[in-house]
């Protein structure tokens, strides 16, 4: 009857042990982990045996290694998303034999604890102590907004595997920032456009914080029907009985929910218990491969909007999903897919500049060109460094092997331009 979610999440598969290199630099060895122990979060892994001693002295024209920081939320209950991102990235790195664009990759994984102030400190440490060239991260918009400034000012390229805050897409767009994911509002716009044909009166629900309001704004941008009501719940709230009663009383044609992570787990479950089965639920970030192991049967039939799904029909995606499930024994979520893409994007860009990391302009142009094969099929960057890609409405279903995943229902928008690109002065 029960499903302990915690055990469905594979433990870290990487373990890092510290060792002292002759040059006195801290270096960590990379081992396979067999027990259920945790990874050391602040750990750098030198995938292949490489010498750091040569770094001293005049900077070489073409460095023989690339220094990558991976900054994700890896502790606390929000860690599930970060773990997906980390695993997707490390899977790609494995496939590339620990090299990015032919250079040995030195990867430092840090935990931002989902706290912006902690994250800024860790970012500074990545710059000042590790001297990173790239940072793959973060997982949450608030952290992204906090670290992108300090990192890019130091000349670091930042690749986001998930957050695409409106500011970074528009007025504060940044030459060194690339969203490998989407602009935050886009999945909501997709659902809004789709629901316009399906329902007249829609009830909206989201947590009471900035992202919650942004996501509902995104939905309303494309939704043409009537809003039955708009309700905001507290982020720490776990029981939604009052809101469900309001939904029941309003009896709308459909519900649109942005209830990320644990909120979604409780919301979906209580929605079912409240006997509201007749009302279809459209959502974003509420039912995905991170929450489904806990929601299970309760979430089947729920709709979502996304740029990717495990069953997205590209050759590259089939290979990715198969490799991910083989290595980590769970279904990948979009966070893993984006992080996986981010690694290949870096690989292609570094290769394009011949491993010369010192020419930032050339490297930036190479990143912008995005000449890699995305799991999402056709993929390119707009002038604001946000993707031009297709979006789908997906629906939760149970697979033949008993696991749950989102599946593509229909392609809704073809390569939409995000709503903020026009405000970006970059071209």
């Amino acid at each position, binding site marked *: *009857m*029960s499903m302990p*979610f*915690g055990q469905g999440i594979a433990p870290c598969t990487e373990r890092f042990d510290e060792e002292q290199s002759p040059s006195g630099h801290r270096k960590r060895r990379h081992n396979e982990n067999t027990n259920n122990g945790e990874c050391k979060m602040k750990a750098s892994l030198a995938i292949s045996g490489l010498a750091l001693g040569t770094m001293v002295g005049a900077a070489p024209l073409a460095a023989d290694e690339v220094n990558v920081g991976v900054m994700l939320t890896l502790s606390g*209950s929000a860690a*599930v998303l970060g773990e997906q991102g980390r695993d997707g990235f490390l899977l790609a790195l494995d496939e590339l034999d620990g090299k990015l664009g032919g250079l040995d990759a030195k990867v430092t994984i840090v935990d931002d604890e989902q706290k912006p102030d902690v994250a800024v400190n860790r970012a500074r440490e990545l710059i000042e102590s590790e001297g990173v060239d790239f940072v793959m991260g973060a997982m949450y918009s608030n952290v992204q907004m906090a670290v992108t400034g300090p990192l890019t000012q130091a000349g670091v390229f930042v690749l986001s595997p998930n957050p695409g805050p409106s500011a970074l897409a528009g007025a504060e767009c940044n030459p060194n920032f690339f969203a490998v994911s989407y602009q935050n509002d886009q999945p909501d716009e997709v659902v809004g456009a789709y629901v316009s044909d399906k329902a007249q009166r829609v009830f909206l629900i989201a947590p009471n914080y900035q992202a919650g309001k942004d996501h509902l704004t995104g939905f309303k941008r494309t939704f043409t029907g009537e809003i039955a009501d708009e309700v905001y719940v507290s982020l*720490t709230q776990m029981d939604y009985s009052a809101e469900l009663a309001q939904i*029941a009383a309003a009896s709308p044609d459909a519900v649109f929910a942005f209830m990320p992570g*644990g909120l979604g787990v409780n919301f979906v479950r209580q929605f079912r218990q*409240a006997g509201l089965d007749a009302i279809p639920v459209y959502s974003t970030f509420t039912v995905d491969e991170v929450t489904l192991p806990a929601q299970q049967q309760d979430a089947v039939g729920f709709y979502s909007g996304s740029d990717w799904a495990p069953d997205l029909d590209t050759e590259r995606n089939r290979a990715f999903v198969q490799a991910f499930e083989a290595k980590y024994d769970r279904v990948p979520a979009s966070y893993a897919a984006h992080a996986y893409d981010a690694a290949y994007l870096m690989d292609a860009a570094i290769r394009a500049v011949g491993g010369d990391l010192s020419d930032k302009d050339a490297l930036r142009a190479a990143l912008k060109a995005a000449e890699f094969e995305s799991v999402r099929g056709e993929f390119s960057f707009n002038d604001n460094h946000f993707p031009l890609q297709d979006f789908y409405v997906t629906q939760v279903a149970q697979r033949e092997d008993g696991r749950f995943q989102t599946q593509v229902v229909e392609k809704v928008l073809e390569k939409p331009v995000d709503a903020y690109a026009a405000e970006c002065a970059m071209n």
Partner: protein
Amino acid sequence: MTNLLILQTLNGLQFGILLFLVAAGLTLVFGVMDVINLAHGAQYMLGAYLAAAFTALTGSFALGLLAALPVALAFGLLTERLVIRRLYDRSHLDQVLVTFGLMLMIGEGVRMIWGSAPISVNLPQVLSGSVPVYGNLRYPVYRLVILAAGLGAAGLLGWMIHRTRLGMLLRAGASNRDMVSALGTDINRLFLLVFGFGAMLAGFAGAMMLPLVSAEPQMGDTVLILTFVVIVIGGIGSIRGAFVAALLVGLVDTLGRSFGPVLLRTVMEPDAASQMGRVLAPMLIYILMALILAIRPAGLFPVRQ
């Protein structure tokens, strides 16, 4: 509107009853033993995790719940013997710190054992689904079960406090601690019982909520703060006060969230009203507490002179 009012009142009562189950232990520990226990929320969380673990083991939520109770009790007793006992003659400040540390330890321990992702448990078939309450409005069966179980526990507790010798000692202890020891009662055993029992009640509340909210390591934090609000409003050490205040907080919070924006809309622009509602809703119970304390500094049912 009437329909919604009925539903929301039920929801508010159910939330209040839950708060009471957690608050009862806290207010007794506070009132009788004069110990501030910040780890009380962690005991609520632990109850949920224990029930989840035992449900997974036995395959039945009812059995899981039953098995979780004695373990929660044992954990409470152990905590009292190892840590809390050393705090009786310490200042409130030391108590706050030690139990704060304890809270961190239990939270992290749970995270080590069960991971950080939420763990959920499915309801038994008979208890899932909903029943019609009024007109076409339906109410989940399980929430009615929580309401009934909570009221049952409250009734039992009330009977114990007011009708048994143990209850008499507790009431005496809350208003005058020295008198109880003067009566020749083994005060240490009394304290041990109170603490263990309080921990078990909190664990029971956590376990009961498990099918609704799924277990998460930080689920105790919010509840802890809310129960502090409850016992302070009710008057520290007063079970009756805790009961009244818990229902008050449950109702004010639930009805305020639901009807606050509606009420505000009658006096201001819809946009400003919903904006204002969003700002005020989470603050409502803290405003309630500050108001009550400003008028009655010792709470609604002050116990000690």
